[in-house]
Every structure is written in C-alpha cells, then in structure tokens.
C-alpha cells in the first residue's frame, strides 16, 4: 500500500507529461486528481493507524540506490508518526489544489502540463518525507526545488516569471550547498547516511571537536549548522528568503501548495527529523531561535506595506515559518509541527481565496485596484475572513492553539534568547493581525478602484474553487481544537513516541493568565483599529507615509535585500566572469600560450627564410662556416 501512496503521483506525472495531448485536458485532470486522491486516502489510513491503532514505524526497501565502499544507500519508504502527519498534509492539500486548479486554469492552454507538474511536486515531496537516509531526503529536497522552478516559470512567456524561477532555484541551491556539506560531514564521521545509524551513534561522537577553515568547534555544531543553512534556504528564512516573494509570479494554486503549505515547510521537517542531532547542540538551537524570531518580525514589517495581494501572503508565510523555527529552536518540535499543520490549512485557504479574488478580477493582483468586492464575491469573502481570523490567532480557531502554544513555549524556555523570542513573537502577532486585516479591508471594503473592469460583471468563482475553499475553511476552523490534544496535549509523547527526540519532557503547566490572554487580546484589539485606520480614516496612514517616507520606502523595498545582493554578489560575479574570460583566457593564456608560441615560431621562420636567398655564395658561405665549426669541435 505504501508503494501506491508513493508512486501514484509519479505515475500521474509520467502519463500526463507524455500523453497529455492524447488524453486531453479533462482526462488528464481527472487522472492526476484521482491518483492524488488515492495517495491521500492511504495517508489518512496510516495517520489513523498511528493515532488510534498504535502502528509501529515501518521501512519498505524499494531497491538499492548507491553502493560505494562502506556507503550503502537505498531507495526506501520509511513511515513513522512524523512522516505520516506530513503525508496527510502533503497529499490532502495537494488533492485540494489539484481540484481547485481544474477551474482556476480553465483559460490556460497547457492544462495537462500544469497538472503533471503538480503531481511531480507531490511525488518529490513524498520522497522527501519518507526517506530513511539523508541522500533520499536530498533527492526529494532538490526534486521539490525543480518542481517549484517549473511551476513558478509555468507561464514562460512572462520574463519576470522566468527570472523568479531561476532565482528560486539558485537561492535554494545555496541552501542545498549547506545541506550537502552537512551530509558530507555526517558521512565522514558516522560512516553512514542512514538515519538509524546516525541517530544511534550520536553519543559516541557528541564531544568530538573538529577544525574547518581554522574554525574550531564541536562536530555536531558544525553538522547542525550546515543542515540548518539548508533548512533556511528551503523555508525562506532571513538572508535566504528573497526568492519566496518573487515566487508569487507562478500561478496561485502553486503558491498555495508549494510556497505556503508544503515545500517551504521542508526546512522545519528537516530540523525536526534531525532532532537527535539538534538537541545535542545548544548553540545552534540558539541560532535557530534568533533566526526564526528575526524572520518572523522582518517579514511581518514588510508585509505591512506591500500592495500585491499575493506578496502580502507570501511575507506572511515567511513570518509564520519563523514562528515554527522559534519553536524548534526551543526544543518544542511537536509544537512546531502542530503549527505547520494548522498553518497548512489557513495559509492554503488564504492563498486559494486570494486566487479566487484574482480569478474573478481577470488576473489583477494589485490591491490598490480592488476594493468593495465583498458584495460581489461573498463566499470568497467569508472564506478569507475565516482564514484571516485563523492566522491572527483569534480565540478557538486553529491558529490560536498553535501560535499561542509557541508563545507559551517561549515563556517557559530556558533558552538564553527566549526573551528576544517572546518579545518579537508577541509584536509579530500584532503586526500579523494588522497586515492581515489591511489585506481584507483593501480588497473587500471601500470603493472599487479598478477602471478597467466593470464592477457589475464580477462573479464569484464556481464549484471547483468553492469546494476546496470550503474544506480548507473547515480545517482552519477546527484543526486546532481537534488535534491539539493529540499533538501537543498532556500526553503528546503517546503520539510522537520515538519519531522526535525530546531531551527534556515538556513543561505542561500553563503560564500566568495575563500572559495567556495577552496576545489574543492584543490581536483582537487590532481589528477595530485596522478598520478605523484603513477604512474610516485613511488620512492618518497617508500622513504617516509622507512623514516617514524613508521608513516607508525601506519597508516597501523589503529592507533593500535584493539591491544589496545585486550589488554584493550578482554584478561582481558577472564582472569577474568577464574578467577571467577576456583577461585570463584570451589575453594571458592564449596570448602567451599557443598564440605567443605561434608568433615566435613565425618570427624565427621569417628570419630563417632570409637564409634561403637563392644565391649560391650565401649557401657556400654558410656551409663553410658550419664546416669550420664542425672541424673545430672534432679536433678539440
């Protein structure tokens, strides 16, 4: 059964990409969607088994992949508690996105190709989470990167989309570089890349010191540091985040599936999967906490002023991923996964809702050209409200449970930087609420701002968009309340068992009441405030914009990260490339090498030609001289 789970999406991909034209649009859509449906049913079955029937983790060998010296790696399907919950998220969201795309892409000319790529992505993601060794994880890791590249650049006639696709791939490659180095280090010291071999032998090398490039350090710190760089790239953490907002050039279903619910959470998954390694390296956990908290704050500030509806949500994704990293940094891996789980629902809901808006407005994404839409697209409006309430942590919705669990975890943490984490997490929660409500108000309230479209012709989307939104809304509403007990309740260890390594049992008492109600209260307070500032009295905001223009520009331009990288990396690299080519190869090597050699030869031969003048007495003279030299040598 696990084989079907893994290979159904691959099968869908291969058939649709090869015979898409032959099958026709409708048949390819049905084929890929139903194959993913099968996969998601099976993953629900496994998940149910782990929760209620006390399933044991299992490992199916597919076949041997690489054998070289002591390195033996397999293609395999390893499913434990952690994997099973990831599989549910991946396959279920993927299924909804498949269905949603049937309507969303109805004007597109290459529907089979789109469906095929979605299935390819699903397959790669399944391979990533069901690996039993680091190399298969790496395969899935780069595989999802490829699918992301293909889908961002899906509309290949758009230059911006192509650029965004390349950027996504290359920034991810930088992260992958880190991950690869981590993997090499593991192999060098553990002699194996299988999770089991590595995690079981940690104690034997936990105090090992090594020296890389004159930096002394604990081996495990080095390993986890490099692994974390990989995680940062994939999960768009600060410094390696620049690709995610640009990735919004892709079709919206892609943003929902890949850049919100699943692929970007691979970094979290990696850290949680390697919890035995990370738990032995306090320093790196601190770094993770700081990076996570900083990203959460940074992305939230940028989201405040963006005008593209999808970019706002993209930055919000960055920010929420930051929350998850804070949780892992504190050792609260189960809470990180819980937030990952609820986030998948409400963020996919927000993205697909935004997609529904965009679809209704003939592909308009700029919020300045929207407004007053709630009357025209009431269902989408309601779903977006639910999503917003969930993400802002409105009491008793899914986001409330998971985000507050993280904030509570920061309160009780012994981590040195927990104070910083508490502070930024609370501030970010407020900012999250502000930008989320700003999005709702700018899109759905006020007056309609787009002169190119006739307001009366705007229609809500159809059934294929409605159903996925409805299901996701249910998830956003109830996934927190239902699964809280299982994932992060009193007996959380009953579910997770050995799939996550906890070095300490988690504190189960709750912080003081004022702290518990602080964040929900603040975020709820922002609702009327946002309505006032963004709808009733826009003057104040406009005034602020003008007064603090440098700050506004700073935020609008995303803290100038792109400009900085262009200045520091992209342009110099091009210059150096040209320099090596023109000066190194053409001038120096060719100039002094073969061309110089040829010149010298020609010069000598030119000189030599002069001897061959054709006059007999010249030859006679030369012969005479050489004869005399020859004789002298012999006689002496």
């Amino acid at each position: 059964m696990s084989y079907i789970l893994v290979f159904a999406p691959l099968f869908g991909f291969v058939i649709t990409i090869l015979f898409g034209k032959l099958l026709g649009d409708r048949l390819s859509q049905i084929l890929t969607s139903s194959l993913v449906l099968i996969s998601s049913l099976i993953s629900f079955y496994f998940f149910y088994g782990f929760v209620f029937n006390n399933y044991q983790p299992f490992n199916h060998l597919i076949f041997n992949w690489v054998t070289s010296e002591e390195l033996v790696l397999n293609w395999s399907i390893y499913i434990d508690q952690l994997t099973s919950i990831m599989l549910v998220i991946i396959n279920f969201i993927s299924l909804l996105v498949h269905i949603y795309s049937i309507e969303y892409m109805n004007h597109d000319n290459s529907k089979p190709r789109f469906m095929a790529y979605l299935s390819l992505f699903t397959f790669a993601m399944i391979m990533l989470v069901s690996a039993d060794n680091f190399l298969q994880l790496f395969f899935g890791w780069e595989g999802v990167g490829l699918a992301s590249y293909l889908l961002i650049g899906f509309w290949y006639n758009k230059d911006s989309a192509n650029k965004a696709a390349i950027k996504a791939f290359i920034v991810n490659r930088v992260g992958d570089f880190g991950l690869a180095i981590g993997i090499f280090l593991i192999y060098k010291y553990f002699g194996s890349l299988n999770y089991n071999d590595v995690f079981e032998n940690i104690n034997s090398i936990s105090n090992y010191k090594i020296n890389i490039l004159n930096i002394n350090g604990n081996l495990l710190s080095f390993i986890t540091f490099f692994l974390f760089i990989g995680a940062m790239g994939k999960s768009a953490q600060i410094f390696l985040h620049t690709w995610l907002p640009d990735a919004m050039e892709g079709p919206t279903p892609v943003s929902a599936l890949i850049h919100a619910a699943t692929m970007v959470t691979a970094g979290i998954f990696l850290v949680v999967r390697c919890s035995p390694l990370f738990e032995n390296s306090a320093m790196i956990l601190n770094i993770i906490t700081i990076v996570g908290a900083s990203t959460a704050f940074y992305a939230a500030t940028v989201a405040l002023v963006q005008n593209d509806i999808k970019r706002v949500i993209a930055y919000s994704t960055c920010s929420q991923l930051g929350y998850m990293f804070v949780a892992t940094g504190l050792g609260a891996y189960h809470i990180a996964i819980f937030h990952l789980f609820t986030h998948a629902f409400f963020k996919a809901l927000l993205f697909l809702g935004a997609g529904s808006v965009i679809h209704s407005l003939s592909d308009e994404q700029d919020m300045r050209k929207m407004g007053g839409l709630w009357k025209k697209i009431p269902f989408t409006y309601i779903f977006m409200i639910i999503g917003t309430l969930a993400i802002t942590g409105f009491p008793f919705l899914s986001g409330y449970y998971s985000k507050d669990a993280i904030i509570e975890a920061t309160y009780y943490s012994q981590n040195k930087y927990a104070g910083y984490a508490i502070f930024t997490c609370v501030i970010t929660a407020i900012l999250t609420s502000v930008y989320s409500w700003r999005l709702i108000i700018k899109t759905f309230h006020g007056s309609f701002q787009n002169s190119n479209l006739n307001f009366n012709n705007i229609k809500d989307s159809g059934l294929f968009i409605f159903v996925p939104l409805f299901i996701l809304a249910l998830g956003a509403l109830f996934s927190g309340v239902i699964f809280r007990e299982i994932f992060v309740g009193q007996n959380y260890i009953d579910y997770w068992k050995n799939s996550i390594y906890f070095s300490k049992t988690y504190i189960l008492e709750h912080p003081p009441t004022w702290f518990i109600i602080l964040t929900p209260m603040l975020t709820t307070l922002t609702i009327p405030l946002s309505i006032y500032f963004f709808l009733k009295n826009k003057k104040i905001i406009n005034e602020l914009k003008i007064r603090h223009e440098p700050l506004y520009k700073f935020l609008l331009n995303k803290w100038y990260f792109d400009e900085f990288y262009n200045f520091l990396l992209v342009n110099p690299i091009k210059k150096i490339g040209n320099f090596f080519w023109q000066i190194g190869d053409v001038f120096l090597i060719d100039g002094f090498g073969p061309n110089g050699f040829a010149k010298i030869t020609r010069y000598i031969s030119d000189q030599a030609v002069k001897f061959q003048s054709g006059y007999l007495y010249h030859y006679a003279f030369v012969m005479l001289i050489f004869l005399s030299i020859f004789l002298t040598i012999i006689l002496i």
Partner: protein
Amino acid sequence: MNLPILSILIFLPLIGVFFLVFTKGTEEFIIKTSFKVSLITSVLTFLISIFLWINFDNSISSFQFVHEKKWIKDFINYKVGIDGISLVFILLTTLIVPICIISTINSVKFRIKEFLMSLLLIETLMLGVFCSLDLFIFFLFFEAGLIPMFIIIGIWGGEKRVYSAFKFFLYTLFGSVFMLIAIIFIFYEYGTLDVTKLLILDIDKNYQNYLWLGFFASFAVKTPMWPFHTWLPDAHVEAPTSGSVILAAILLKMAGYGFIRFSIGLFPHASIYFAPLIFTLSIIAIIYTSLIALMQQDMKKLIAYSSVAHMGFVTLGIFVFNGNGLAGSIFQMISHGIVSAALFLCVGVVYDRMHSRKILDYGGVVNKMPRFSTLFLIFILASIGLPGTSGFIGEFLILLGVFKNNYFVALIAALGVVLSACYGLWLYKRVIFGKIVNSRINELVDLNKKELLVLTFLVLLSLILGVYPNIILDTVSVSTNNIIYIFNEKTNIKMTFND
C-alpha cells in the same frame, strides 16, 4: 574460448574503414552505402562490447580477456586486456559512436564518406587506448587519436577551423612529447613496457616525480585542466556537431583514464607529492571556468567551458585516493560523456535549423519546439547535477571522497555546484523561454523522428544511471578498490623503508 575478442572489438571499425575506402559509384550511392556500412560496423562493435560486459567477471581484480602478440622483439608487445574501469569506457565509446554517425546525417554536408571513415578510425583508436596493456601501444593509440580529430576540425569545421585545428594540434602534441620521453625512459630503466608488470613494480622514488610530470603534461592538456584548456572551446566551436560529440564524450575521457591507470598506478609517491597541485588546478578550473561559462554568448562555448569545470571534478576525485572519489570520477566521466554529448546534439539540432549558435539570436524556442525543450531541460538538469540524473551521482561521490580528505577543497568545489546551476538555467532561460524574438524562431519545426529517438535514448540512459547507478558502480568497484589497495600497499611499504 580462445577468440581474441578484444582485438576483434578494436579492429572491427577499422575493417569498416577499409570497406569505405573501396566504396565507389555515384555520389548518392556512396553516401547511402557508407552510412549503412559505418552504422552496421559501429552497432556490431557495440554488440560485441555488450557481449564483453555480460561475460565480464566483476568479482576478480585482474585483467581479463588478455591477448598478447610479439611485435618487435624485446621492445614492443601488442598486449590488450581489460578490467572494470576499461570496460565502462569501452561501453561508452561503442555507444556514442553510432549516435555520432546518426547525427552526422544532418550536420555534415560534403565528403561524408571521408567523415565517417574518420569517425570509425577514432573509434578504433579510442578502444585501443582503453584496452592496451603495453605503454607503447597505449601511446600509439593515444596520440594517433589526434590525427582524425585534427582532420575533422580542419576539414568539416566552421570559419576559423584552421586556427582551431592547429591550436588543438599544437597543445596536444606539446604534451605528448614529454610522455614519450617518460615512456622511453621507463623502458630503458626497467626493460619492459608491459603494464601488468609495471603495476607490480616499485618505480624508484627518485624518478617518480619526473616521470609523473611527463605523463601529466600529456594528460593535463587532454583533460583539459586549467590553464591548458583554451584549445577546447575553440575546437568545439569550430567542429561539426558529431565532431563535438565525440570530442566531449570520448576524447576527453582518455586523459582521466590515463590518470587513473598510469599516474596513480605507476607513480603513487609522485601522485601524493603532486596532489596539492592537482587540487589547486582543479578548483581553479571549477570556479574559474564556471564563471567564464556564465558570461558566454555562444552556446557551444558555454558547454565547452562547463566541460572543463566538470573535468575539474574528475581530476579532484582521482587524486583523493579513496574508493568514493575514484568511483565518483569514473561515474562522472561516463555521465559527462552521455550528457555533454546530448547537449552538443541539442545545440546541433537548433543550429541545423537556425545556423547560429549565438544565444542572443534565440528566445521563445519552447513555443515552437516543446519536445525539444523538454529533452533539453533534462540534459541541462543532468549537467547541473540534479539528484535522479546521472550527473548527481558522480559529483556527489567525488565531493564525498574529497571531503574525507580536505575540507577547504571540498567547500570550494561544492560552490561550483551552485555556479553550474546559474549558467545552466540562465542558458536555458535565454534560449528556450520568453516570447518569440524573431521571425526565424517562428519557422522552427520540432524534432524529427531520428532526433527524437536519439535524444530520448540519451535521456533514458541518464535517468537510469541516476536512479540505479550500481550498473556502473558494481562493474568498477572491484577494480577501483584494487587500485586503492595497491596504492596504499606501495606507499605504506615505502614509508616503512624511510623510517
């Protein structure tokens, strides 16, 4: 079974050449028969190599199918035999040549018979290189391979073909002279050129460094290593498509094979002594040529420079002296043989239609050639080492091996993987994606059946090797382990002597 099967394998293409010499008649008839003859001989050769592979016992480390004949008494023996490493290169050669012949139909317009003769001649010589167990025979095959390639570039090349051909010849000849001197010296000192005997022999430590340098001069040019690489881009740019294919896929592999068989095998101490030199040149090659590749405006030049970077990985993997690195290098060479051949074929496909290799002349090709674009993408991905393609396994094993040995080198080399993604994807974006830039793109037609067949075959090969690399790794593992074992034995014994 006493058939000298290796000799049959080596000289079968030569028999094809003789048939071609005597083909006469109308032009059309000549073209048709010469294609038939050359295709049949090359496919037959391929079948023989498959037969070899089936009968090859990959559990023993000694040379197999050995065949020996006296040629000049007490001086040169004709001796051939193979181990796992030779075998995979033989398979690569016999596989690529038929593909070259098929692709010749589009890329060469005149003197087709002579062109095919050159191709078959190269095949014989390359097979000789990978089979020979006598240093002099090896040298003959190794250097003779230059001549048909020189002719291919010089006659069927582009505008600057004469310059390129001479540059190619000058460079490679320069290297050969030193190798010849080294070989002659070995003969005078040790009285034999039999490789099997020399491999057991401990060559005097005092001579090793000089002899190593002699071989290095030749191999470094042919690999090519930085800074002896500038002949390669020019040669590729001027050569016709099938010439580029054979140059990239097979000729570049001779030197890597030579490093493994002779530099490490005969001169282990010198290899250790010079390993830092190799590391330096290799990482310069990887970073420097990747950056240059990024800025190229000519597709063939870009791929040529990327070849130099890929071969940088190969030389790195060889000189870390462990099983992972060595197996990775061999795998990388096979993979590069397949992938770079395919990339040159892809450039050939669009060149035949547009008669331009300038990247600027392209854009939006996917609108007209969707099938081509898909296949081209897979080759680009294989070239940048995406897991699941053959390109990944080689680079991964090499870096794994290097990492055991030296962090710094491994870190720098791993940066090359990021750079390769940059130039590969950027090339693809500029050529394939975007809006249709000019009317000539608008007239493009997608792959014909023959092109589709060849490219699909190579795609499948690359994917199969990426998913199940043990096809090759199993074949070479005993041989590589043996090389590493002997290497360690020799260097350890010497060390105890010194102490």
